[in-house]
């Protein structure tokens, strides 16, 4: 039985989520996937635009859409700092789908490089949101 630890997600506007009985956090850094359990060594990780999964002591899971940021684990407390983060249930699937389509059309109608890179980023975010939303609703 894994021991629970503190877990918090903070965004510039508010503290998005806080829980004391998280036993596992799975996420993606800019170089690859990682997972954290209790008594992990202190770590500061740079996050990619990817889903973040946390498992609670009672076995339930929760997914978050995190668009980059940092994760810090120290003294049995794990903190995620993200400019944009949303819990899976709150994602507006219709909006995410619309954003995905918009980004795709923008990418296919080759415009300037700067616009293309921005479209790519928003496509990445939209796909991630859709995935997170699906994962949250699967159970």
């Amino acid at each position, binding site marked *: 039985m894994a021991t629970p630890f503190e877990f918090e997600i*903070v*965004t*510039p*506007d*508010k*503290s998005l989520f806080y829980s004391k009985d998280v036993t596992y956090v799975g996420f993606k*850094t*800019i*170089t690859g996937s*990682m997972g954290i359990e209790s008594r992990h*060594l*202190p*770590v*500061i*990780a*740079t996050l990619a635009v990817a889903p973040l999964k946390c498992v609670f002591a009672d076995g339930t899971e929760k997914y978050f859409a995190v668009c*980059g*940021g*940092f994760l*810090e684990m*120290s*003294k049995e407390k794990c*903190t995620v*700092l993200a*400019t944009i983060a949303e819990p899976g249930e709150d994602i507006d699937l219709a909006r995410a789908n619309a954003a995905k389509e918009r980004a795709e059309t923008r990418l296919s109608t080759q415009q300037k490089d700067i616009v293309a890179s921005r479209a790519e980023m928003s496509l990445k975010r939209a796909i991630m949101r859709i995935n997170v939303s699906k994962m949250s609703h699967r159970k």
Partner: protein
Amino acid sequence: MATAREIHRHMKSIGNIGKITKAMKMVAAARLRRAQEKAAASRPYALKIKEVLSNVAADTSVIAGLNPKEHPLLQHREVKRVGYLVLCSDKGLAGAYSANALKKAVAEISKCEHEVLIITSGRKAKEYFARRGYNVVSSHFGFSDRPTYEDAVDIAHDAMEAFASEQIDELHIVYTLFKNVLSQVPTSELILPVKPPEDVDSSNKIQESFIFEPSQDEALKILAPKYLQTIIYAALVQSAASELGSRMTAMSSATDNAGKLVQSLQLSYNKARQAGITRELNEIVGGVEALAQSNH
């Protein structure tokens, strides 16, 4: 002396102004409460990002060995041109708020011996500096009393571009620190190059050694701009609260003054009205007497 009707009209218009200022005061009070809540809500993120940055930058040897090309924001250069980011309001009717912030900015600028470039936030600041022939490189407005994090990101983007392209070698921010409703302090701080915050209690804390995933270098690359955005956001939120607080006190005293003015006008109105009645009575009595005498 004005006629009773003129005084009455004046009184009415002052009364209406009083109603408007009272409404503005209440709007400012409601917004101020929201702004203060926002300031409180943004604090955990700001504190945490400071903490992470000080942890990342704890190892000074790493900072020294950085490639300046990849970390433009941490680069210390010889100062030739200095940038000032001035945060001010979009609208007036906030007492001396804009004037104080601008005064502080001008005082700072006149102390500076280098060439000065200015980035403004808020219409008032833009108008002020543009009219006086300062070199304004970019200006932002439309959000001074309700800033969002995106606004801070936009400003930070311009600031970083100017700094990275060596347009400026230093950036100061001038904003208004919100102490309470009655006191707001114009403040100036150096924000670029990014200086990692010194840990206040590092002496009595056992320095934890973090594992960096993927590396300290990568973390700093993303952290430095985020830190800048956070500082600017915090300053924007403080300035917004100051603006609203200042507007609230200004409108509150305007309402009081309107009330006092109406009172004194009411007095002279009553006097004028009474004088009119007395005069009319005198005329009637005089007329009656004249008639009585002619009848004799």
